[in-house]
């Protein structure tokens, strides 16, 4: 296997895939738009119906899907390295549920829109700390145990959120949205928020990409290389918590993107984070755009939560990985 040359090739293909996904996402929708019309309105925004549909409804939604997908993939990549656990995903280990509970609490205590992501951030970081504490309790804690503990955490946090929402607003619609994830009704301001968070997150993780490589090998090795392991761990948790929090605030709980995208990326370019990071983020973005396009194109129904689509696509993938990792457990 040659690693040189290939990562760059994969990166180019990932960019191309993202461009195609963006176009498909903009093209497909309840109002039929020809490809020519699409290209024309992209190049010349005006007040025509098609242009408004594309620029004000589809573009923010498709971009939000891309940014949420990229954010979840980034968080998944970081957690997988940090926990040395190939099954880690912000949804499966409870980070997303933590963010969702934090956002809900904030919504009830300080109903200011800008405060919601802050609450989500605190909830996400607290949930990561709980999950990593479980992972570090004993050096021999197995890959599957960590995931089970994380998943239990996620269920508890999700139930608490649902309880709060039921008691407070009796708003089943909102609960449905949080639990299954959806990108309907996303507007431009949220797109900018998502872009800022993913920008900061990606730059931060890129800055730490060699530390991430070293920590993924072993913490004692990382220490010997001159890394302040505790500090880098905190920095990474904060970056991953940030992107997860903003993604969850915009779209609720969307599972498996953070599991699938980093896996496919590592399979394609190896586990060096310098390459795996951009490929995972671009892949996660394309994956969620396409999943969202499917979610809003079901005939006769109109729209289903995108979390259903990602779960149906990513769930089987998770089971395969789970079976494979339990088989490998003896050797670890």
């Amino acid at each position, binding site marked *: 296997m040659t690693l040189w040359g290939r990562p760059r090739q994969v990166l180019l293909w990932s960019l191309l895939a993202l461009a195609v996904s963006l176009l498909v996402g903009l093209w497909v929708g309840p109002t039929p738009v020809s490809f020519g019309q699409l290209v024309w309105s992209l190049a010349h925004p005006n007040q025509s119906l098609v242009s408004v549909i594309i620029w004000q409804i589809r573009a923010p939604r498709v971009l939000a899907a891309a940014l949420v997908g990229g954010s979840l993939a980034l968080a998944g990549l970081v957690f997988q390295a940090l926990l040395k656990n190939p099954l880690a995903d912000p949804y499966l280990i409870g980070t997303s549920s933590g963010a969702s509970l934090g956002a809900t609490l904030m919504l009830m205590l300080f109903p200011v829109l800008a405060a919601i992501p802050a609450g989500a951030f605190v909830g996400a970081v607290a949930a990561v700390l709980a999950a990593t504490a479980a992972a570090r309790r004993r050096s021999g804690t197995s890959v599957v145990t960590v995931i089970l503990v994380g998943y239990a955490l996620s269920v508890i946090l999700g139930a608490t959120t649902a309880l709060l929402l039921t008691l407070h607003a009796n708003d089943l619609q909102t609960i449905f949205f949080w639990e299954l994830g959806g990108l309907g009704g996303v507007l431009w301001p949220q797109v900018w928020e998502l872009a800022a968070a993913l920008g900061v997150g990606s730059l931060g993780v890129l*800055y730490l990409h060699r530390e991430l490589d*070293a920590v993924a090998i072993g913490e*004692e090795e990382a*220490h*010997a*290389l*001159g890394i302040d392991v505790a500090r880098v761990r905190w920095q990474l948790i904060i970056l991953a918590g940030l992107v997860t929090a903003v993604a969850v605030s915009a779209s609720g709980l969307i599972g498996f993107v953070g599991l699938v995208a980093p896996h496919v990326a590592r399979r394609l370019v*190896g*586990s*060096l984070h310098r390459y795996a990071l951009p490929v995972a983020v671009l892949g996660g973005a394309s994956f969620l755009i396409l999943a969202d396009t499917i979610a809003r194109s079901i005939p006769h129904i109109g729209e289903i939560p995108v979390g259903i689509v990602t779960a149906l696509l990513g769930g089987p993938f998770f089971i395969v990985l789970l079976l494979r990792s339990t088989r490998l457990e003896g050797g670890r």
Partner: protein
Amino acid sequence: MSRLVVSHLSFGYRRRLVLSDLSLDMESGQLVAVVGPNGAGKSTLLRLLSGWLVPVSGQVLLDGQEVRDLAPAERARKVTLVPQMTEAAHDMPVEELVALGRLTRLSLGQRLLLRPLSDADQAAIESALMAADVKELAKRPFRELSGGERSRARLAVALAQEASWLLLDEPEAHLDPGHAQAVMVCLAAQARAGHGVVAAMHDLTLAAAFADRMALVDQGGLVAWGTPAEVLTSSLVRQVYGGQLRVIPHPEGGSPVVLPTAQPSGGKEA
């Protein structure tokens, strides 16, 4: 010349002491072998020397400075540790792995991939690959290497760091006699070049053949410290390792050779 001084060092988990009141005074330019039975505290000692573990009491002084108090980047230029090899393997190419040894010296531009590694970094990586004899494995993923190749690749990472002290936990583990010998030759060369080298070892004969000084550790305490010939006497070896081990001088050079004997109760020294 650099000095690594351990004074009255104790370490334990919960109430069980792993090391108690251990003192050592080591100089750079020498190869020090730390030997002792399983569970004697060799790995713990190396982890304390590298600053990874915090002692319960006592000090680890590198040229008069407490290792734990050094800033991580500065510490990495003074001392590095190659821990025991684990089963888990990753797919990083060897040269990328070795480049991690230069991690603390990278600039912002290099971290964000806007600039290539500096010439000094490239040169250090190159000479580490040469010294550990893994130059031709540079592009290979770590996972695909044999046990001996992995062990040399991990040594190369430490060498690229250019730290004055090199700590190794069982560098000869999983290696056949030829490869074990080659690793020791490389470590001895590092010591000749002025580095301090401390290796925890199980193979007493191999350790004795290469070490300038030897520390025999048992049950968390220092039993003997001196040249291999001084430390590996028949009586000490039997006292610490039990069994019916025999010690004879090496036909070339006279360093102690530890021999197992098959007779359950015999094996008296001639």
